[in-house]
């Protein structure tokens, strides 16, 4: 890639930094050039976030329909997969699996609810009621 071809597209990256790219100058020598972003990358990130939003919406519906517990909603909201949630709460995966059902969730002690709430960065009340104030 030549220095002039380093993309300078608007992107979320541009809000906080420019990134260093290695590219060649007229003589073919490698130099660094700053880039504000690349549309191709920005759209990949958009696609990922759109998918996350769809997952969150679908999880919310499942909870409302009584097919899942609020833990599913917050997992999707916090982009946590099972190993990550397991690491943050200290619960084994099969136990989380159980807590993901409305029945399993209803049986959770305050202490365990507290652990989930802490992992998701919400209060226990917010966890139960599936409300979230964006930070």
């Amino acid at each position, binding site marked *: 890639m030549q220095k002039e071809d380093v993309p300078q597209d608007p992107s979320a990256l541009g809000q906080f930094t420019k990134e260093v790219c290695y590219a060649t100058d007229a003589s073919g020598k490698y130099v660094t050039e700053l880039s504000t972003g690349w549309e*191709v990358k920005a759209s990949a990130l958009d696609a990922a976030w759109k998918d996350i939003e769809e997952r969150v919406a679908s999880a919310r519906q499942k909870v409302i329909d009584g097919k899942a517990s609020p833990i599913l909603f917050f997992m999707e909201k916090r*982009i946590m*997969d099972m190993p990550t949630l397991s*690491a943050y709460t200290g619960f084994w995966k099969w136990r989380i699996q159980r807590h993901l059902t409305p029945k399993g969730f209803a049986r959770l002690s305050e202490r365990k609810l507290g652990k989930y709430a802490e992992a998701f960065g919400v209060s226990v009340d917010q966890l139960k009621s599936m409300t979230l104030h964006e930070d």
Partner: protein
Amino acid sequence: MKTEFDHLQAAHCETGVTTGLMHHIGLDKMTEPLAFGIGAGLFYIYIPYIKISNGPAIAFRVMPGLIFKRACKALGIPVVRKKFRTKEESRVALDSRLAQGQPVGCQVGVYYLTYFPKEYRFHFNAHNIVVFGKEGDNYLVSDPVMEYVTSLSDYELERVRWAKGALAPKGQIYYPMPSSEPVTDEHIARAIRKGIRSNAWVMLNIPGHIAGVSGIKYTGKKIKKWKDQLGLHTAGLYLAQLVRMQEEIGTGGGGFRYMYAAFLQQAMAYTPHGTLPEASALFTQAGDLWRNAAVQAAGIYKGRLQTQGDFNQMGDYLMEIAAVERKAFTALSKIKWTS
């Protein structure tokens, strides 16, 4: 307290931290491409059946920490690396290093990294920063992907140093110590040759078909089947993930090829050989092809390209890349250094 540390913006976090910390111990000749090449950082792996954020597990780099470790070892620079059991221990260890004037490399998770915009904050735990001072409750942070230095509060730094999940940093700190004898150009030349040999060996000969050059080819083959196996929507998301792993800060597939090409150019100054410029040109070509592949992938996940033919084309790009990189590494592996 504040240590003497010159912030260095870099294309990649680990090579940036490595280069910055090496400058600190007086090795001013170190550049990011040299650190990357000496650390034999170019890699590729696609692990099927494992999913990361609901997409394919693909990496363009070696395990976190390995570039730093290898680069220091090849140059005869002693390394300090510590993991901790408790947050308290990790805080005390960091503070005491800073009090001694030692800037410290830290592995951190990006999910709670407050100075990153929300869009970039995933549960990725192998980001690297340099902490170089503390003013009141704030730690001074040199993050190689940022243009300028930044800071994190006590609590914020602790949270990212103790991020959990895959590759959890466990408060990990690391830094190089000044070596007993100065690093000469001959040392660097030797380290470069070693780095090239080991990187070529890994990319060509790593066993199995999911890693190295054959891993790229394997991914190409797989992609051709994604449309039928996964459906257009999921296949598109998989490709978006491939592009993110490839081009996003801290990973960089296309970018890494350019960096490796730059490394081979810079290597000429230390250990000249006719094959180096040729191989460098091939890596430039590979980098361009990775970018073309990303454009093709974008066409698919944005819904502009939807046919099996488009997926075949995408797969073919990766096959072509595999062929170019095989050629380049084969040429490098056959170099007989005269000195």
